[in-house]
């Protein structure tokens, strides 16, 4: 009996050490520096002319066509960031401007120049909270993987839920569903020194099925030469939406100028 207990203890201790050793020897990757978008600003990096049209349901395809008809008249519909709403997820990952990726054991952070946006991806093993406040970038839980078993994490999978709207995939009037039940799945892999790839699958009721695209970003090593530029959209945005009408703010004249023909110019009512 004594022998048995001692044997169990040794085995348990050995397993514990083995488990700890595996945890402590895993290394997190260095993905620091600046990452810059490769490809177009369409959600499909090659552009829809090459990759084909977005897989929209008939309802959302009709909505897109109506948006395009109005745009031809000069109405800026179907593009929420035009009024300085955040791009949100998944559109943020088109990365109009460069971004930085900071990796810690508990979280990975994406710091984007566009809209000065921050994504916080929890990698501490947590489960989904009972309640998640909807936010434009959603709530993200990630998990690191070692795909080539060399002891260094090389792939970050992320699931993002609780995303606030309105949102569009890009500026071409491809909008996500009004119910905001979008789920975004991502897999980040560093393909080589210069390339970070993100395989992004969007599940949304505006789509006929999951829509997967691969977006890539090129690397600039961290140094004094790397340029980061502040982006505050409210600083000088001239695109104003009043009800269903769009106007172009003419700050110099103090007027709201029409964007489509036949629309009245709005001027200040001044006291005499």
């Amino acid at each position, binding site marked *: 009996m004594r022998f048995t207990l001692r044997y169990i203890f040794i085995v348990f201790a050995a397993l514990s050490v083995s488990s700890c050793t595996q945890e402590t020897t895993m290394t997190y990757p260095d993905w620091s520096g600046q990452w810059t978008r490769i490809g177009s*600003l369409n959600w499909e990096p090659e552009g829809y002319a090459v990759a084909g049209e977005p897989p929209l349901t008939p309802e959302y395809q009709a909505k897109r066509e109506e948006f395009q008809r109005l*745009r*031809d*008249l*000069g*109405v*800026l519909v*179907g*593009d929420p*960031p*035009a009024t*300085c709403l955040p791009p949100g997820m998944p559109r943020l990952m*088109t990365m*109009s*401007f*460069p971004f930085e990726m900071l990796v810690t054991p508990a979280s990975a952070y994406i710091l984007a*120049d*566009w809209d000065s946006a921050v994504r916080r991806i929890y990698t501490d093993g947590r489960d989904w909270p009972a309640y998640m406040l909807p936010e434009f970038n959603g709530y993200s839980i990630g998990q690191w993987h070692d795909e080539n078993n060399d002891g260094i994490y090389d792939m970050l999978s992320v699931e993002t839920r609780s995303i606030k709207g309105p949102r569009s995939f890009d*500026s*071409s*009037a491809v909008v996500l569903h009004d119910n905001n039940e979008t789920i975004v799945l991502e897999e980040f892999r560093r393909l080589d020194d210069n390339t970070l790839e993100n395989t992004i699958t969007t599940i949304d009721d505006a789509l006929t099925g999951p829509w997967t695209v691969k977006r890539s970003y090129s690397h600039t090593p961290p140094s004094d030469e790397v*340029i980061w*530029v*502040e*982006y*505050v*959209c409210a*600083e*000088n*945005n*001239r*695109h104003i939406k009043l009800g269903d009408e*769009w106007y*172009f703010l*003419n*700050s*110099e*004249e103090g007027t709201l*100028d*029409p*964007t*489509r*023909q036949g*629309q009245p*110019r709005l001027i200040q009512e001044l006291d005499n």
Partner: protein
Amino acid sequence: MKRFTLFIILFLPAMMLARSSYGHHSTAIYDSDNPVELQGRVVEWQFTNPHTFVILAVEDESGEEVVWSLEGSNTSLMFRRGWTPDSLQAGDEIIITVRPLHSGAPGGNYSNIRNLDGTPFDPKAKR
């Protein structure tokens, strides 16, 4: 005062370049099919986000001065190309390609800033 002129030509390569620089929003409110070239005097250069603006005084065909609000690329891209808040100054005379608002109001989307002799404007030149 020097008489400024407004004339219309097609300038598609510059338009395509301008489109590729846009990330913040669609350029649907601008008439890409009918770009114009404006020659005028800079009233103000706004090196701001989400877009830079050139406020340009242009004399129209009837001799009246019209002030245009012209939206361009953003500070992130332009700073990397050498543009700063001091690149343009009030009083500078330039030629600029513009996709005007569909409505006909004096606003638009600019690209391809040039000197009056047609040479490219150098944003890094000492002033």
